[in-house]
């Protein structure tokens, strides 16, 4: 277990963490401000990936594909909000779960009808391929560094918007006390649509960045959505700072756990027992972490209200 290995796994964890953050940011805002449980957030992730693939195939350029994916998911998100979410704002969480679950099924079938059930594979442009040499001597893929960079840039941008602009002020106010914001005469419907749309666009960005790493297939969003919920529960609902911290923690703990738990266990118990127990425990690790955080701070690490 050398320093080079630990550093490489840390980078992997951070990269996974920022991808979780992109999805968690939108979801936590939607849940915090609009009090809306949106299970279809994973479907927006999938829509972003598919639109990016379609855009790249149609135009031949990777960047055009990225733009199509981002803008397309923004439009789909806002349309989804206007058509299906508006009747749900006052209602019980269970009703919202039912509707958004239906949306998951709808999007999965729609994608399967248009693009088929098999996975789509795209190749990256030449400037994103290959590796860079780290100072420790090992190599790291260029693309994952770019994903990490984009995620951190979005985090900074979000921080700027939320803390330094009027829109951000309204978002924070809405997360604290929705009724008062409406009573003060702010166009709350427009605010909701904008927040939902940008949350969807961020999820789409996560999806289109994840596409070349994982497989672009119907149902790809559901797997990551579970971990995103863990992130927002740990970070605190409604708090973007909590989403960032929670996502980094979950990403790093999950990756380091999968990488190092087995060898660490092998020093304590026998090697064959560690072989069986290691991966099982590693996959449970983030849920154990969530349980511990909830036991100590029931509202999550950063509370917004």
């Amino acid at each position: 277990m050398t320093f080079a290995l630990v550093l490489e796994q840390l980078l992997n964890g951070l990269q996974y963490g920022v991808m979780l953050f992109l999805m968690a940011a939108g979801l936590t805002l939607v849940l915090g401000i609009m009090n809306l449980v949106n299970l279809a957030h994973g479907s927006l992730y999938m829509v972003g990936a598919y639109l990016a693939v379609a855009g790249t195939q149609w135009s031949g350029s990777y960047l055009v594909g990225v733009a199509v994916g981002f803008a397309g998911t923004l439009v789909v998100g806002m349309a989804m909000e206007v058509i299906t979410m508006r009747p749900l704002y006052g209602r019980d969480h269970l009703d919202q779960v039912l509707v958004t679950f239906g949306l998951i099924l709808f999007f999965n079938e729609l994608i399967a009808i248009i693009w088929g059930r098999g996975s789509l594979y795209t190749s990256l442009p030449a400037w994103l391929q290959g590796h860079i040499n780290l100072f420790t001597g090992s190599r790291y893929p260029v693309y994952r560094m770019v994903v990490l960079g984009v995620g951190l840039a979005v985090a900074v941008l979000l921080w700027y918007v939320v803390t330094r602009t009027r829109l951000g002020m309204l978002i924070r106010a809405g997360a604290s006390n929705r009724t008062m914001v409406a009573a003060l005469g702010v166009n709350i419907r427009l605010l909701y649509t904008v927040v939902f749309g940008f949350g969807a666009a961020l999820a789409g960005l996560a999806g289109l960045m994840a596409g070349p790493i994982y497989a672009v297939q119907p149902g790809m969003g559901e797997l990551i959505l579970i971990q995103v919920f863990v992130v927002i529960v740990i970070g605190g609902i409604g708090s973007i700072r909590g989403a960032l911290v929670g996502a980094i923690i979950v990403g790093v703990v999950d990756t380091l756990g999968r990488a190092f738990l087995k060898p660490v266990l092998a020093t304590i118990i026998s090697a064959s027992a560690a072989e069986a127990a290691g991966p099982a425990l590693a996959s449970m690790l983030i849920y154990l972490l969530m349980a511990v955080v909830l036991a100590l701070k029931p509202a999550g690490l950063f509370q917004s209200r």
Partner: protein
Amino acid sequence: MKTWLAALLAAVASVPAMAADKLTLGFMSVLSGPAAVIGNDIRDGMRLGLAHVNNRVGGLPTTVLVEDDRQKVEVAVELANKFIKQDHVDAIIGLSFSNLLLAIYPTVVESQTVLISSNPGPSQIAGKDCSKYFFSTSWQGDNWSEAMGAYLQKAGVQNVYILAPNYAAGRDVVTGFKRFYKGKLAGEVYTGFTQLDFQAELAQLRAAKPSAVFAFYPGGLGINFVKQYAQAGLKDQIPLYTSYTVDYTTLPAIGEDAVGLLRTSSWDPDSANPVNKRFIADFEANSDARHPSTPATRTTPSCCLTRPCARSKGRSRTSPPCSRRSRKRTSHHFAATSVSTATTFRSSTTTSGEWSKRAPSCAFVRSKSSSRITATLTLSSVR
């Protein structure tokens, strides 16, 4: 080719009239998700095989019911039950994954329905679970990796790092590899069956400093693994050897990253026999210029294989397909001979062929086939 058709007709004509008047086959394979590259090829190979016999397998008009098992065990079991109890199929064919095959195996053989596998060949069925209703037109999972193990052993490569997914075929492949590779292992890692991101495992691999890597990742897993291996800068540092990973289902997606990799196989498009050439030409014509792959070659003979079953419908089955010679000889596999016809399936033409310029976006992959596979199905002509 003409002799093949002639033998077919002769065989059919020489058999007395049968009890049944049509044939129903249940086809199930993975047609969604990352592994759909394999399932789609198996299905298209099957359709081509049917077209080559004019939809009359064994002289009987044949219907094939195509279903998607979505790589899920519960769906596969449900489909098997549906085929047997509801559709009353004469044989179940297709199948892409060993764990799904093992899941439906007890149900199907207990109902005395013929089960023909085009892809997986779990070692359990070659041994104690052998049944006279099971045929395989492909291989036993160990075979191609045995060849790779023997090759690396002969080449004097030491310190190999092994990676495979954690399921029945993954374990079979690694067992086959270790049967002939007797050198030191730098590591033996089993990843999750649906895990698509190997970055953590690649970091571990790099830290272990092996001199070679052997990997088995079928379908979409292989696409992701090879691409990530290349992106991590490992391809020019540590040579990668694979079985069932870089093949014609995954090469279009892997692209340039496959250049220079060595793999073992029992079929290659450059095999210069006329049946193979006809197969490739028709496959490309029928499936939008997609190039055929090994799984596709495995199902075309599968349709030919059901001919003895068709003829013996209503009578007792002919001799069992899986050899009961010895369970200790675990390197044996299924010799699919049909006893009552002139058509036998001989060993494949072993070649070290170069992938020619036909394939899109791939320049050169040297394939070295196994010399141990003695009775593998291929599209050889009748003697």
